[in-house]
């Protein structure tokens, strides 16, 4: 059985590998601890032992040192984990130098709002395309560094794309930029992972990852449509 859902981002496998690494350490430690806990129950059962030994484990005594060494080993494996996970954390939180596409994703009650920058590539101009409806789709090209400016309109939301392993809270009044580089085409859920009110459950949109040609085609028609409606309104 696959424990994780399919990973579709460049850094997603990092999380999965990290899981197995920590599991190796924690699992070993768990098995040892279980042994420490259960073995004496059989060996030192009151039917087998005449009298318990008088061990106080005071400071500096031999048995105390034994426990101290065990703690030290525990501490060392802790730091190995910390060391190993740091690069994964960096991969998620440090933006790459090259920005290929950028979107604004805004959480509101109860859907995600997607903003495309328009042809000029700048947000806040007249040709921005804003899509604000439940279950709408955000189109993203494959194998590109896609940047997401995450915002929230009313309450705290959390941008969660399961298959990329990325989750980030969206805080009202703040803009937090995260990035994803998709490695596989398809349609993926965006859900909200922070309780945001009565329809928290229904807050779901999609990310559609397409090949570059398809994406260019989509963006072209989107912008043309936008220009047309803008023209009509004038």
């Amino acid at each position, binding site marked *: 059985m696959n424990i994780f859902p399919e990973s579709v981002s460049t850094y997603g496998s990092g999380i999965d590998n990290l899981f197995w690494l920590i599991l190796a350490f924690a699992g070993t430690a768990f098995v040892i601890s279980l042994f420490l806990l259960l073995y004496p129950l059989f060996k030192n059962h009151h039917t087998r032992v005449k009298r318990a030994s008088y061990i*106080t484990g005071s400071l500096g005594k031999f048995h*105390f040192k034994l426990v101290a060494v065990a703690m030290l080993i525990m501490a060392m494996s802790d730091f190995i984990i910390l060391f190993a996970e740091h690069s994964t954390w960096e991969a998620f939180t440090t933006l790459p130098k090259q920005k290929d596409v950028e979107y604004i994703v805004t959480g509101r009650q109860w859907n995600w709002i997607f903003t495309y920058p328009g042809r000029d590539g700048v947000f806040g101009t007249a040709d921005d395309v804003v899509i604000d409806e439940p279950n709408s789709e955000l189109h993203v090209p494959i194998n590109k560094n896609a940047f997401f400016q995450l915002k929230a309109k009313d*309450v*705290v939301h959390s941008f969660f794309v399961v298959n990329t392993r990325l989750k980030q809270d969206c805080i009202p009044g703040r803009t937090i930029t995260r990035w994803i580089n998709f490695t596989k085409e398809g349609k993926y859920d965006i859900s909200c*992972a922070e309780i945001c009110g009565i329809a928290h459950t229904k807050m779901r949109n999609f990310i559609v990852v397409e090949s570059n040609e398809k994406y260019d085609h989509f963006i072209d028609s989107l912008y043309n449509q936008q220009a047309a409606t803008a023209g009509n309104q004038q």
Partner: protein
Amino acid sequence: MITGLFMALVGGFLAYVFRYNLAFPGESIPLFGQLSAGQYNQFITNHGLIMVFWVGMPLLVGAFGNFLIPIMIGADDMAFPKLNMLSYWFFLTSAIVLMISFFVPGGAFAGGWTMYPPLSVNGYTDPSPSFLSAIFYGSSLMIIAVALEFTAILMGGINYLVTTINKRAPGMTPFRIPLAVWYIDIATVIFMFSVGPLVAGAFMLLFDITLGSGFYDPARGGDPVLFQHLFWFFGHPEVYVLLLPTLGVLGEIIPVFSRKPLFGYKPLIVLSLISAVLSVVVWAHHQFIAGIDPRMATFFSVATILISIPFSGIFLSLMATLWGGKIKITVPMSWALGMIGLFLVGGFTGLFLGSNAFDIYAHDTYFIVAHFHYTLFPSVFFGFFAAFYYWFPKFTGKELNKALGYIHFWLTFIFFNGVFFVLFFNGLGGQHRRIYNYEMFSNVAIEPYITFEKIATISAICLILSQVIFLWNFIVSWAAGRKAEKNPWQANTLEWVADSPPPHGNFHTAPKVYRGAYEYSVPKASEDFLPQNLQAD
């Protein structure tokens, strides 16, 4: 204590209702009926609040603190008995206020037990609330209830500390005090130092709701994350407030049934003090993905992983007490061992979450839910039951039914694992929390996750039903149980010197203390235990 147990039943009922809903979405729930999304949010929120504040704290810190602290240090009563009563009435009032909040227009508070603003301030039912809209009642009542409850615990805490410092029996030097008393007191100190900022934060939240101030409103220069910091500054130490009393109880039970001194008594106290200090600098690991500075996150990740070291020491010492002992498995002992076993799972899964990178994925999923239930359930319920079965003879002068005790233990143990072990997998599968209906999410609305949901729900129902055995045993044994001996477990600490149940004033003549609490199997001694009050030959 009875109030605490009653609240546990309420909390359990809420859990039953929403778990049923998760396994069988949309179906009518026996004993309840149809659950709406709004009610679902109310129920998960109040399940969390009740279980932590109205069950965990009163059962362990409240009930056992009041009973054990005076009698274990050889005092006749608490330092301020009137304050104690007042504290109880505050607690009762707070519980009633919280219950009332279910019945006001708009229902109880539904913004998650973490109460993150702006959701808690405006609009978890209606995006544009007016001053007198329903929201106002539920959340205000909730905050008032929490405030009353904190006041109650603070009053109790003042009492505990003063009692321990001032009312000890002659000869009860600081390092002869049993570990249970030490740990309850340390928990109280942690509580007192961490709760202040949350009270301040709750004030601001209350005024944001009622008077229209903007402490957490970004449009007015406030910052929602501020509340998260204030909340978790208290919230993480709170976990240790719940855990430490249980560890103290274990520190009594395990030596008694191993007939062996507690391993490393002084180191255990030092370790718990270290973890108490560390506990107030780890809070932001609840906020790795809340947009805090990545470097800060790294700091908190290191601190979090560091705190596992003193706790590993504490658990190793408890297990080391078993080695070389003469172990007798009894009902309280099985609860104590079960607590260690389950908490190990909770503790080691904490390693995953403490590493900030994995937390990006696991945060707010069922992985976290399973993790904190594996830590809190053993520390609250297993700790409570261990203490209950251990001290019941002293408490009432009656014996509990052993067979029923074992059945209760094994059923609770098995079904608890049945609920939460499968949820680890659901969490890793990306199922996020506090979702009313999973059918629309493609990644979790597939097998095996649906089956896992059902296993969890059925186990949860069985888990709650198993507690009937406990209640039955409790009531029947109290009313018609066999008379218990004065010191049925042959333990050393002072409470076993008193009559069962202890009369008013606890002791007929004030006991004198000649030694530490854990002198078991002392070489050359005739018995394998040496009570603290026994004069040396």
